[in-house]
């Protein structure tokens, strides 16, 4: 009688422990399927984010992978909903630890080809030239302004999302965006003035 009683006492907490573990396991990143989904959803944006910093797509992918590996190694501690912010802050800090900051030269692809009725060679030249100038101007922006600008324009992130990644306030992000845009305008204008 006594023996059974004891057995039950030890069995009950063990059973509930298992249930809790299963519940949390379901919601953490430690599930290969979730992990894959997270990669499909955020992998490219993270790679882009790293590209804005290092200007090298291959290196950017490696850095993104590094963040994803850290996510996996800490998967028990990260819930699926928190995975994105974990990835970006990790990537952000990963780069902070790297001492050398090379000068970046960013290049982008065009999503829309020029419309047929605008195939005027002079216009095409101008458009190409403008793209080049803008790319150069963006590359010359201070790092954090460049990031805000590109994460918002290319990756269509909201300013709040960017504020979370950079771990700054929303108004600071607004300021950076405005500064970035003003500087781009200034440098483009300077280029044009120089030519004239």
């Amino acid at each position, binding site marked *: 009688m006594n023996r059974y009683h004891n057995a039950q006492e030890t069995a009950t907490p063990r059973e509930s422990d298992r249930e809790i573990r299963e519940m949390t396991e379901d919601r953490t990143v*430690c*599930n*290969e399927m979730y*992990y*894959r989904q997270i*990669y*499909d959803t955020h*992998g*490219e944006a993270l*790679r*882009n984010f790293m*590209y804005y910093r290092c200007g090298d*797509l291959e290196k950017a*992918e490696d850095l993104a*992978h590094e963040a*994803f*590996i850290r996510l*996996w*190694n800490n998967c028990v501690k990260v819930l699926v909903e928190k995975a994105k912010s974990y990835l970006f802050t990790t990537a952000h800090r990963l780069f902070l630890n790297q001492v050398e900051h090379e000068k970046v030269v960013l290049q*982008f*692809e*065009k*999503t*829309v080809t020029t419309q047929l009725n605008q195939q005027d060679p002079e216009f095409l030249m101008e458009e190409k030239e*403008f*793209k080049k100038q*803008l790319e150069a101007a963006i590359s010359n922006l201070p790092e954090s302004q460049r990031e805000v600008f590109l994460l*918002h*324009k*290319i990756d269509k992130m909201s*300013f709040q999302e960017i504020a979370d990644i950079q771990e700054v306030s929303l108004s600071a992000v*607004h*300021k950076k*965006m*405005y500064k970035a*845009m*003003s500087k*781009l*305008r200034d440098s*483009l*204008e300077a280029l044009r003035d120089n030519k004239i």
Partner: protein
Amino acid sequence: MNDNREDIFIRWLNNELTEGELRELDGDAEFEAFKKINAEVETWKLPALESESYERLQAKKDPGHSAKWYQTTYLKIAASLVFVATLAIYLVNLRSTVRIETATGETRVVMLPDSTKITLAPSSFITYNNRKWVQNRQVELEGSAYFDVVSGGNFEVAFEAGTVNVLGTEFEIKSFGNQAMISCYDGEVSVNHGQNTMNLVRGKGLRIDNEDSFEQFQFENLTWQIGYSKFQSSPLAFVFSSIESTFNVTIETEAVDENRKFTGTHSTTDLDEALQVVSQVMNLKFAKDRDHIIFSPN
């Protein structure tokens, strides 16, 4: 003022401006420039991640932290267990297969698990399975040995030229390659040689010279002696083979009929004594150069 411009700019980017505010911005030099930049950048993109990108990530992931860690760990454990088990079986078999060898000039008495006594002549070896001995009394022999077998069950000695099944008890086998000589000192043994089976009783022997040729013989001196090898009308060729094998030497003959029969006993520990006995009995002389001996007529 700057704060105001920034606020309008952010709201413009967020598409939060009213139509009135938008109209006010028309013709504003700064905003026209912004619009141009905005329009250009909106058409930009970066190359999509390649589909192999995820596989590359998987490859980089520390296997120790892989989702399938439990599988790989279990597999490793299973593989280790299989390996250990195989090794154990191998070692047990290795250990249970006993090989006993005698060097040149060495004679050894081997007691098998059932108290069967084997006296191993020089330059000979036997192997048998120690673990399965009780079920399977089987010995392989190369060289010469004298067997005193404890009765009970089958007892088999395999050598290159045949096998001997013991029906009861004391016998000697000399086995050199495809030649062999079996002498029964007590009881009865049954010899298998190719298709033939012969029973040998006390005082009878069988000499196998090659695959098709064998001869029964009789002998009288029924005491088997350690350190001596006994021959009863054995061809010289057989005696020489026995000496070659026992002492690890090579014997050549010049103008000697190797079919002549030798009856006698020679030492298995003293080569010179053995050579002298044979040459005296057969009226031969021998020349010895280290391991090489040449017999010729006296």
